[in-house]
């Protein structure tokens, strides 16, 4: 039984038994591209697939679809959902639960032991056994941190490389002025299309601080100063909440190395508070109270 058929069987069982109304998974789109799929009909489960190009973090669809705890007073149809989650995606679910975006009982997590996603996933005709994405090369836990059903076993972690870490070291070796020019060069290309924000499971503010009608924090102009304020502000708002799925960097049309910004803050959170986002449904230390002894 391939992983795809296992997922299809599980989806069929969940849908037929009425445990869930929708299964969010992956399907084969046009031009050999893998894309998110929303299956509600039992005989549609054949669309569901699993392959090395399943790069999207599907958990970004959950906050809009499920009810937060304080609203689950039984009103309205109970929209239970099943979701296919890779190990990195599953950490985002923990972040959602820690911030009470929805209650755990509304979700059936089909965790998939992941052997890594290939570079070029999400683009036309990806090379199905090409080199792994940077996040996958550095990934050591190949089993989801939270799941109801586990599909496949975790393949042994052979060699681990950390291209992002190397780039971080390079940047840290530069002078502040050098780093400033590095980032201004990248931010200059930004289009403010917000694909990085819309794809991010941790970015679910009703109105983004940087997109207000009254330009309180940044203006509407697509200019360097506003772009930098958006990227740095967003990076800060992800401190202790970003789980490193790096989808933001994948979808960026102008190849801004956004993962470096997130990695800088997640490294700082680990250094100062020994905290790794998504390990457990615990909110980020930056957003919570100082515990007693940290005077």
């Amino acid at each position: 039984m391939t992983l795809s058929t296992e997922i299809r069987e599980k989806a069929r069982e969940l849908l037929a038994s009425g445990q869930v109304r929708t299964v969010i998974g992956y399907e084969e789109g046009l031009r050999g591209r893998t894309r998110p799929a929303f299956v509600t009909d039992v005989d549609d489960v054949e669309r569901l697939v699993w392959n090395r190009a399943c790069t999207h973090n599907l958990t970004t669809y959950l906050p809009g679809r499920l009810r937060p705890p304080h609203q689950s007073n039984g009103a309205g149809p109970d929209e239970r959902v099943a979701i296919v989650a890779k190990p990195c995606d599953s950490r985002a679910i923990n972040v959602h639960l820690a911030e009470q975006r929805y209650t755990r009982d509304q979700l059936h997590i089909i965790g998939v032991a992941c052997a890594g996603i290939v570079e070029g996933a999400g683009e036309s005709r990806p090379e199905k056994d090409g080199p792994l994405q940077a996040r996958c090369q550095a990934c050591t836990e190949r089993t989801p941190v939270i799941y109801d059903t586990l599909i496949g076993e975790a393949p042994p972690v052979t060699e681990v490389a950390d291209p992002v870490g190397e780039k971080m070291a390079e940047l840290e070796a530069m002078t502040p002025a050098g780093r400033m020019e590095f980032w201004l060069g990248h931010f200059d290309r930004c289009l403010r299309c917000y694909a990085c924000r819309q794809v991010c499971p941790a970015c679910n503010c009703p109105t983004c601080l940087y997109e207000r009608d009254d330009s309180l924090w940044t203006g509407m102009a697509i200019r360097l100063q506003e772009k930098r304020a958006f990227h740095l502000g967003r990076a800060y708002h992800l401190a202790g909440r970003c789980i490193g799925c790096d989808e933001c960097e994948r979808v960026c049309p102008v190849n801004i190395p956004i993962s470096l910004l997130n990695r800088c803050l997640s490294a700082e959170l680990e250094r100062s508070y020994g905290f790794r986002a998504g390990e457990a449904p615990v909110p980020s230390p930056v957003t919570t109270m100082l515990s007693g002894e940290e005077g």
Partner: protein
Amino acid sequence: MMFEPRIIGFLCTWCSYTGADLAGTSRLQSPWNLRAVRVPCSGRVSPELIMRAFDEGADGVLVLGCHIGECHYDNGNHRTAKRMPPLHALLAFAGLEPERLRLDWVSASEGERFARIVSEFTEAVRELGPCRWRRAGPALPRPELAPAPAERGG
């Protein structure tokens, strides 16, 4: 002409602002570069405020609050203490010299400590020179201001 840094100071009204007052009333000399912004608590100083200050051209930002345990709101300064390290790391990573942002505690009775911190910080920023963080947008033609009919006040 010596470089005069523009320092923005966020002073918590219960401790640091009162400390600043005390420094003034006891004639302690401290550089005038500090533009003080009175805030109800150092916890009110969100990272966006600090980033905005640098975006608008500040050469240094000083955040002063009550000592841990003395906060009028019990845990305001705790929050600031937790927020600063990640902000420091991010701004330094983005190219801002870490010495341009400083968090410290000054209680209402420490006028002398206030004056010392402000002069220490001003000298540190002066040494770093003007902050090149702000990037002005394109130069745009400005309307010549029509002569205002009523004579403007002195």
